[in-house]
Each structure stands twice: as C-alpha cells, then as structure tokens.
C-alpha cells in the first residue's frame, strides 16, 4: 500500500488503475448536488508551494476540501522560505503543527523525495512537481482524461497512440506521462527539436522524433507542452516564430489528425507559440476538461493515501 506519491516510477499497474477507478467514482461527487464528502474530516493537508502554480494548487485545495480535510496553504512568497529557511526546518514546523499530508511543489528536482526519505515529518508526501523531474498527479489526470475519451470500455490504455510535443527537456509533465502512459499500455512518441530532448531520452519507454508532421496522422491523443521560457537560460531554438512554425499545433496541423483524436495541454498555455488559439478553443481540445478531471484524480490520490488507517513505520 502506498504512503507517499513521489514518482510515477514507484507505481505498479494496479496502483495506477486503482487511482483512476477511484477517481471515476469520485467524479460523481463533483457532479452531485452536494459537492462534499466527510471522508477526510479532521485531517490536515498542507499545500507547500515553493514555486508558482495556479491550477495544481487550487486543484489540490478543491480536492482536499471536497473530502472535508482542512487545508493550509503555504507559498514561498510571504513565508519564511523567502527568508532562507531550509526545507528541513519547514518540514519540522509542519510536523509540529500536525500535518497529515504535505503537497509539495519545488523548483529543485528531488525535493519531495528528500522530504519523504528524511523522516522529518510523519505524514504523507505528495509530489506536485519537483524541478524538471516529475509531476505524477498531472500524469494521472492526463491518463484519466485519455482513458475516458479513447479507451472504449477497456480498463487500460493499450493500443492508444499518444504523442507529446515540445519542451521535453524542462518538462516534468513529459517524464511522468511517458512513464505512466507506457505503464498502462499506450504507445508514446515524443516530438521536439533535438536541443529540447534531455540526455538519456533513448532509454525512456517511448519513441522519439524530430518531425511533427510525419507523426500527426497516427495519433489518437496529442499533448502540447508549454515552452518553459523561465527555465531557459540559453538559446534552444533560433526564434519563437521558428519554433511555432515547426512544432506549434495550428489548424492546418489539426486537420491532419485522426477524426476522433483529442488535444491536451497541461497549462498554462502560451497561445500562439506551442498551440494556436483556434486549436486551444476547438471542440477537440479537452484542456478545460483536464482541469475538472484534475480535481477528481487528486481526490482519489488523497483518498488512497489518507483515508486508511495508520501504517506501520517503514512501509511505503
């Protein structure tokens, strides 16, 4: 049984499917008259966001509140982190306040793992994005959205072709998605300019391509990644216009996709750069539905990690 959610690499197929199935059942709470369940009453969840975020933070907050947990929001700006407090001291403070779980977003890869491994606190740790490493809850909500639209009654994603396009180098979303989608049986292709692939990508369980147009006709779901200008301290492509021309999804490229294919984007979008406004607002785009599904999937994560009884120490 799981205690933390740090990385998709820690999950088995049955762990992942059980989170998706739980999310399916919890989605009906969001559709019901009363959007609230008593399940996590009396539990305290801390959102520790040492890096900017809109949707992940409010999504975790909405998920926790729908399960009746108490939520404490904690962001780097305006807290002691900006005065230089270490992660250890912050964690010990949270422990002293009796947090049952910490949802952590941090600019350093491995921050969530460090928090979980060092036993500075006894609660569960949920990785909400660590540097360029992983963003497991985003991958789970993407898999949930793809399964809902394309699995045709199947339990997993076997036979579905997913393409992830763009800034793979800086993307924790891409890494988590490649691991999860391939774990669930999907065929994954990454498309990016050679400068935006990380070292070692050849060992990932997916194919890689530099040519978007040749991949498009075979795709069931296409996920556009944000170009992360804030992490780019060197020049990775000559100009935004050139990137957009070769790797942006516009209406002409959308026309080459299969009829029932769907378009995903983890947000926030750079409209006009990796995705054009017409495509983002088209009927094939499931980008706002991803946000809705995100709440259900995060409720499922909190349920699986927190609803059960206390675990013996040392188990994960």
């Amino acid at each position, binding site marked *: *049984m799981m205690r933390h959610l740090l990385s998709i690499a820690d999950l088995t197929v049955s762990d992942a499917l059980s989170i998706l199935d739980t999310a399916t*059942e919890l989605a009906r709470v969001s559709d019901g*008259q009363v959007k609230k369940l008593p*399940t996590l009453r009396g539990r305290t969840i801390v959102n520790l966001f040492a890096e900017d975020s809109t949707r992940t933070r409010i999504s975790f907050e909405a998920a926790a509140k729908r399960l009746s947990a108490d939520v404490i929001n904690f962001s780097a700006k305006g807290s002691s982190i900006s005065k230089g407090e270490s992660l250890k001291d912050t964690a010990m403070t949270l422990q002293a306040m009796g947090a049952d779980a910490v949802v952590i977003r941090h600019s350093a890869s491995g921050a969530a793992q460090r928090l979980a491994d060092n036993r500075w606190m006894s609660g569960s740790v949920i990785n909400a994005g660590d540097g360029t490493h992983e963003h497991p809850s985003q991958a789970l909500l993407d898999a949930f959205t793809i399964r809902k639209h394309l699995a045709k009654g199947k339990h997993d994603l076997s036979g579905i072709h997913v393409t992830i396009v763009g800034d793979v180098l800086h993307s924790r979303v891409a890494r988590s998605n490649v691991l999860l989608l391939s774990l669930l049986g999907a065929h994954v292709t990454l498309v990016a300019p050679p400068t935006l692939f990380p070292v070692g990508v050849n060992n990932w369980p997916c194919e890689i391509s530099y040519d978007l147009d040749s991949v498009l006709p075979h795709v069931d779901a296409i996920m556009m990644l944000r170009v992360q200008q804030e992490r780019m301290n060197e020049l990775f492509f000559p100009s935004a216009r050139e990137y957009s021309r070769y790797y942006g999804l516009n209406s002409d490229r959308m026309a080459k996709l299969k009829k029932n294919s769907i378009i995903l984007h983890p947000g926030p979008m750079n409209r006009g750069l990796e995705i054009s406004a017409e495509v983002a607002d088209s009927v094939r785009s499931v980008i706002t539905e991803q946000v809705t599904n995100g709440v259900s999937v995060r409720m499922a994560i909190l349920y699986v990690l927190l609803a059960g*009884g206390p675990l013996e120490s040392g188990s994960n």
Partner: protein
Amino acid sequence: MSIALSAQDISRALTRISHEILERNQGSENIVLLGIPTRGAHLAARIAASISEIEGTPVASGTLDITLHRDDLRLRPPRTIMPTHIPASGIEGKDVILIDDVLFSGRTIRAALDSLGEVGRPRTVQLAVLVDRGHRELPIKADFVGKNLPTSLSQSVKVSLSEIDGRDEVSIEGAN
C-alpha cells in the same frame, strides 16, 4: 459450518420480501430499490426483477456505495470505492428501499443514510435485508427480513450468491 439458508430458502425469502415491499408501499410506482454493493446490489437486482414480474411494470432500481461515509475507514487500509447508480428519476420524494445482505452492527446502514442525503431527500427510507444476525450497535431496525439468525459474536455469517460465488447459500461459521 452449518447451512442456515439453502438456495430455495433464499429464493422464497426474496419473493416474500418483494410482496411485502409492494404491500407496504401500495404498488411499485413510487419506490426506488437501492442495493448496497457488493451482495446487496445483486439482491436488489433480483428483488427488482421479482417486483417487475409481479406488477407487470419495471421498477426503478440501482446501487448505493457507502465506502466514503464509513466510520471505520481509519481502522483499515483504504477500501475500493464501488459504483453508485441512481436511477434517472432520482430519489427526491420517493420511497427508497435500501437492500443489503446481512444486518449486523447497523453501521453500514447509518453510512447509507448519510450517503443518501447527498443524493436527495426521499419521502421515506425503508430497509430490506436477507439476514438479520442481531448485535446492533445503533438504533436501526430492518423493515423486511429474509431470516432472523440468532448468532454469537464469535461466529460469522457468510452469504454466497450465484452471481459472484457460483451458488446461493447462507452459512454460519465458527463456534457457538
């Protein structure tokens, strides 16, 4: 292990419960049958089929999962959430019959009542169970009972249904 109800006993009990539900509610027009997964859901489907046959019109039926409202969630590892299907006509103003296999402490039914509150406000809520084994921990009573089985706390009652267990049978296990 001793057999408390055979397949034929179960079938007769469910037929009788179907008639009793119809008698109490003066027909099937305003009733909604909700089975509590797993075995209660199968029993609800059987009672629905039986009532539809007696009355000659289909009766509204579905399932109601209670996992998220249990009061013992923290005592065990997380449980799988089972499906809830509320009939399209809803439960607002209806006579809801909750159906479960065994009535024991009454805590499942308390959770079911809370869970119903999220769906709507029925006119009445009634309870049908295949077996009432006693030892209530809450002030809850069944309206329709297949069989009252006096048991000791050290015993366990096992309900097998053909849909999942391959045969219909209720047995009591353990020392008296």
